[in-house]
C-alpha cells in the first residue's frame, strides 16, 4: 500500500490543564489529490486537528497527545513543525495576522528566503504564483491596504509559492464577504485540479465549498460522519454545519440524491415546483402595526461623509427608522454600512446633511449622550471586554450611567441570554457565541430604545446563528428598534425583518421588504449581492409567479399548502 497524504490513527488530545479531550479517538486517512472538507460546530476540534497536522500541537502548545499522525509519510508528532516545512502549506482564519511583510512581493518571497532558496529561483516562483492566482494587480501593494479577501489570497499565494503537496486551511472563509469567499474557494478548486495539490479545508460554511469536495468529514471531538458529501449531508442536522439551502430542502423533503448547487437542484425540483398553484401567503414578514403612528426614532437627511483621506464613504443617504422597526442594512464590503451606523451614536459626524436620533441632532450631542438612545454592538466582542467577570462586564454600562440596580438588571439579562451560569467566569473564557451574547447583554443592560449590531453573525456556526435570531426577534417583539448590518444573506432570509436597505459605494441603492429586494435581480446584481439559494432556485425555474419563498421552511410551506404534486 502506498504512502498517504495524511494518516491519523486513534488520536486523542488534551490541551494543558484540561480534563476534557479536544479530540477523542480520531482516525482519518486522506489520499493525495483529494479535496476534503472537515466540518463541525464551533469547539468541535477543527482547529485542534489542523494544528496537530501542521506540527504545532503538541510542539508549540504542549498538552497530551495519544495516537499516531503521519503527514506526507512523516511522523509529525515526534518531529514537529520543522520536519514538514515546505511539504505542507497552512492558511489560518485571520489573514492579516499571517502576513509578516509590508509589501505583497516581499511576503511572497519570505518563506522561500527563510528556506535559503536561491534568489533567481524565488523570483521565478513569484512569477509563477502571481500568474496562477491572477494577483498581478496586488504584487506592489502595501499589505496593510489589502481587503480581507485580498489578504487571504496573498497568504494562499505565499504558501503555494513553496510548492507544497498538501494545503491545510483552518476556517479560511470566516472573515470574508460572500464574493471573496467564492473567489477563494474557486482558487482552491483550481489548485486541486491543475496542480494536483491535496486540499484539506476545516470550515463550517459549506455553501460554496461543498460542490468541489470529494469527501466531507464531520468532526465533533470524534468523527461523526465521513464519506461522499451527498451521503454525509443527508445524515446530519443543519444546526451543526452550514448546509446549502437546496441540500437542506432535499433532505427535509426526503428526496434521494441530494443536490449540492442550485444548478443541480433545478433538475431535482423542476417537476414538483412547476405544479404548484400560487395560493401561498408569506409567513416571514411581520405585520407592522400602523407604521405611520409609530414615532420616528432616526431621521437621516442628505447625509454625506468624507474621511480625512478624501474618500467619500457616504453619499446623500436618506433614511427614516420608526420605533419598533427591524431593519437590515446590506451591501458588499466597503459599501458604507459601518460608516453609516457610526453616525447613529455620533462616533462620526456628518460632513454634510444631518442625523437626528430620538429628536437630538447628532452634531450637537456627545457620543455618551447619544449612546443612551442607541446601543451599538460592534463586530469583535473582544474590543470591549475588560472586566474580571461576566457579571461586571454586563453591568458596566449601567453602572457608569448611575443606574441603581445595575447588577440585578445585568443578572436578569444574562439569564435570558443563557449566560446565567457563567456570571463569575472571565469574559475571555467564554466561547465565541457566548462572547457575542455577552456583548449584546452589556448593551441591553441600560435599555437603549435602539439597538444596532454590526455583522452579528460573523464567525458564528449555524446553531449559534439560530440562537442569535431568537434573541433579535424577542427584542423586536418587546418593542425595541433593531438595526443590523450583514452580508449573511441566508441568515437574513430567515429573519423577520421589516425593511432591507441596500447600500453600494456609499449610496442607498434600494429599500424595501426582504421579498421585494431579494427578488429584484437588478438591485442585487448592481450591489454585488448573491440572493439566497431558494430565491435563485425559484427564479431559475421561473415559477415565481405569485410564489415568493425566501428560505427552506417557506418553500416547504408553499409546497404543502399549494397542492404541489
Amino acid at each position, binding site marked *: 500500500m502506498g504512502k498517504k497524504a495524511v494518516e491519523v490513527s486513534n488520536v486523542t488530545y488534551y490541551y494543558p490543564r484540561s480534563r476534557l479531550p479536544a479530540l477523542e479517538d480520531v482516525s482519518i486517512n486522506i489520499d493525495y489529490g483529494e479535496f476534503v472538507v472537515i466540518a463541525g460546530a464551533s469547539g468541535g476540534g477543527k482547529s485542534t486537528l489542523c*494544528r496537530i497536522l501542521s506540527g504545532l500541537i503538541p510542539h508549540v502548545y504542549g498538552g497530551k497527545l495519544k495516537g499516531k499522525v503521519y503527514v506526507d509519510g512523516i511522523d509529525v508528532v515526534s518531529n514537529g513543525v520543522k520536519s514538514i516545512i515546505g511539504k505542507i502549506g497552512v492558511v489560518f482564519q485571520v489573514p492579516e495576522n499571517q502576513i509578516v511583510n509590508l509589501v505583497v512581493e516581499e511576503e511572497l518571497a519570505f518563506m522561500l*528566503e527563510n528556506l*535559503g532558496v536561491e534568489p533567481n529561483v524565488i523570483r521565478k516562483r513569484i512569477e509563477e504564483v502571481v500568474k496562477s492566482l491572477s494577483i498581478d494587480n496586488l504584487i506592489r501593494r502595501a499589505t496593510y491596504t489589502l481587503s480581507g479577501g485580498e489578504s487571504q489570497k496573498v497568504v494562499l499565494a505565499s504558501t503555494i509559492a513553496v510548492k507544497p503537496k498538501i494545503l491545510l486551511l483552518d476556517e479560511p472563509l470566516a472573515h470574508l464577504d460572500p464574493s471573496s469567499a467564492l473567489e477563494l474557494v474557486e482558487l482552491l478548486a483550481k489548485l486541486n485540479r491543475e496542480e494536483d495539490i491535496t486540499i484539506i479545508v476545516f470550515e463550517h460554511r459549506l455553501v460554496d465549498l461543498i460542490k468541489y469536495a470529494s469527501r466531507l468529514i464531520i468532526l465533533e471531538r470524534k468523527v461523526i460522519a465521513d464519506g461522499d458529501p451527498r451521503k454525509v449531508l443527508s445524515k446530519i442536522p443543519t444546526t451543526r454545519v452550514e448546509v446549502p439551502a437546496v441540500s437542506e430542502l432535499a433532505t427535509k423533503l426526503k428526496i434521494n440524491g441530494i443536490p449540492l448547487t442550485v444548478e443541480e437542484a433545478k433538475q431535482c425540483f423542476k417537476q414538483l415546483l412547476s405544479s404548484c398553484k400560487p395560493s401561498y401567503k408569506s409567513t416571514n414578514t411581520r405585520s407592522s402595526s400602523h407604521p405611520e403612528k409609530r414615532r420616528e426614532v432616526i431621521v437621516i437627511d442628505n447625509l454625506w461623509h468624507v474621511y480625512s483621506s478624501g474618500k467619500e464613504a457616504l453619499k446623500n443617504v436618506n433614511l427614516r427608522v420608526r420605533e419598533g422597526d427591524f431593519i437590515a442594512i446590506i451591501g458588499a464590503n466597503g459599501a458604507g454600512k459601518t460608516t453609516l451606523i457610526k453616525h447613529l451614536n455620533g462616533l462620526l459626524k456628518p460632513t454634510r446633511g444631518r442625523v437626528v436620533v430620538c429628536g437630538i441632532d447628532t452634531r450637537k450631542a456627545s457620543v455618551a449622550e447619544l449612546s443612551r438612545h442607541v446601543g451599538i454592538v460592534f463586530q469583535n466582542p473582544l474590543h470591549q471586554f*475588560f472586566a474580571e467577570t461576566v457579571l461586571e462586564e454586563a453591568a458596566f454600562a449601567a453602572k457608569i450611567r448611575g443606574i441603581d440596580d445595575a447588577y440585578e438588571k445585568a443578572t436578569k439579562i444574562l439569564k435570558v441570554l443563557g449566560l446565567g451560569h457563567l456570571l463569575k467566569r472571565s469574559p475571555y473564557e467564554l466561547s465565541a457565541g457566548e462572547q457575542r451574547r455577552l456583548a449584546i447583554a452589556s448593551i441591553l443592560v441600560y435599555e437603549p430604545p435602539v439597538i444596532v449590531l454590526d455583522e452579528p453573525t460573523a464567525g458564528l456556526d449555524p446553531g449559534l446563528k439560530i440562537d442569535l435570531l431568537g434573541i433579535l426577534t424577542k427584542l423586536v417583539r418587546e418593542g425595541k428598534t433593531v438595526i443590523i448590518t450583514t452580508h449573511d444573506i441566508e441568515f437574513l432570509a430567515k429573519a423577520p425583518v421589516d425593511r432591507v436597505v441596500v447600500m453600494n459605494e456609499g449610496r442607498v441603492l434600494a429599500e424595501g421588504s426582504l421579498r421585494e429586494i431579494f427578488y429584484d435581480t437588478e438591485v442585487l446584481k448592481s450591489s454585488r449581492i448573491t440572493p439566497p439559494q431558494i430565491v435563485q432556485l425559484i427564479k431559475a425555474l421561473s415559477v415565481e409567479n405569485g410564489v415568493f419563498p425566501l428560505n427552506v421552511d417557506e418553500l416547504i410551506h408553499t409546497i404543502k399548502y399549494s397542492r404541489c404534486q
Partner: protein
Amino acid sequence: MFRGFLEGFENIFAFSERRSRFHGVDPRVKMMYIAASIVIAFLITDPLKLSVLILFNIVLAVFSKIPLDRFASAFKSLAIFTAIIYIINFVLRIVFEGPTIATMINTALFIANVALRMILVAVPLMIFTNTTTPREVLQGLVSLGFSYKYLYVIVLGMRFVPIVFREVLNIYDAQRSRGVEFERSGVIDRIKKLKTIVIPAFVCSMLRARDLLEALELKGYGYRNYRTFYKSLGISKLDLVFIVSILALYSTIAMV
C-alpha cells in the same frame, strides 16, 4: 483629539505604495540621509537656515510622492505635540522666573526653534518611512553583518504598529459607544477609564502575537541560520549623486 493624534502618528510611519524615484534608492544611502539630517538639526540654531533646509526637504518629499493628506495630519500631530511641550516649558519658566511677558515671548521663541528642528528631522524621516519598507532596512543592515533573526523584530513592529493603532481606535470607539466619556473627566478619572482601552488592546495584541508566532513557525522563520534575499542591494551612481549633494548642501549651509 485623541483619535486625530493617533491617526497623525500612524501616517508619519506608514509605507506609501506610490512608486517614486526615491523608492528605489539604496536603503543604506537613505539611512545616511536621515543621520545627516539629525546631525544638522542639532548643529544649526539659526531659524532662517533651518527654514531653508526644511523647504529643501519638503521639495524632496514632494518628489518622493508622499500623499499630501499624510503631511497635513502628520503636521497636525506635531503641532499638538509642540503645544504640549510649550505649555510644560511655560509653566516651568513661570515657576522659576515669574509670570512676565518676556517669559512668554522667550518660551515661544525657544519652542519655535525646537519645533523647526523637529520638522527638519520629521520630514526626512517621513520620506524614509514612506519610501522604504522595513525589510529593505533590514537587508541593508544584514549586508553590514547583523543577524536577520533579531532584526526581523523591527520589520514585525513596523508591520503591526498600524494594525494595532487601528485596533486601538476601534476599541476606543467601542467603549465610547457604551457610554465611557474620555473627554469630559478629570485626570485621575481619565487614567481609571484608560483601563477600558488598555486591557482589550493588550488581550487582542496577545492573541495576534500567538497567531503571528504560529505563522512564523510555519513559514520557516529561523529554519536556517542564513537566509537569501530575492532582490540584491546595490548603490547606483544616482544614489551617490544624491547623498553627496545632500552632504554638500548641509555642510555649506552649516558653514555659511
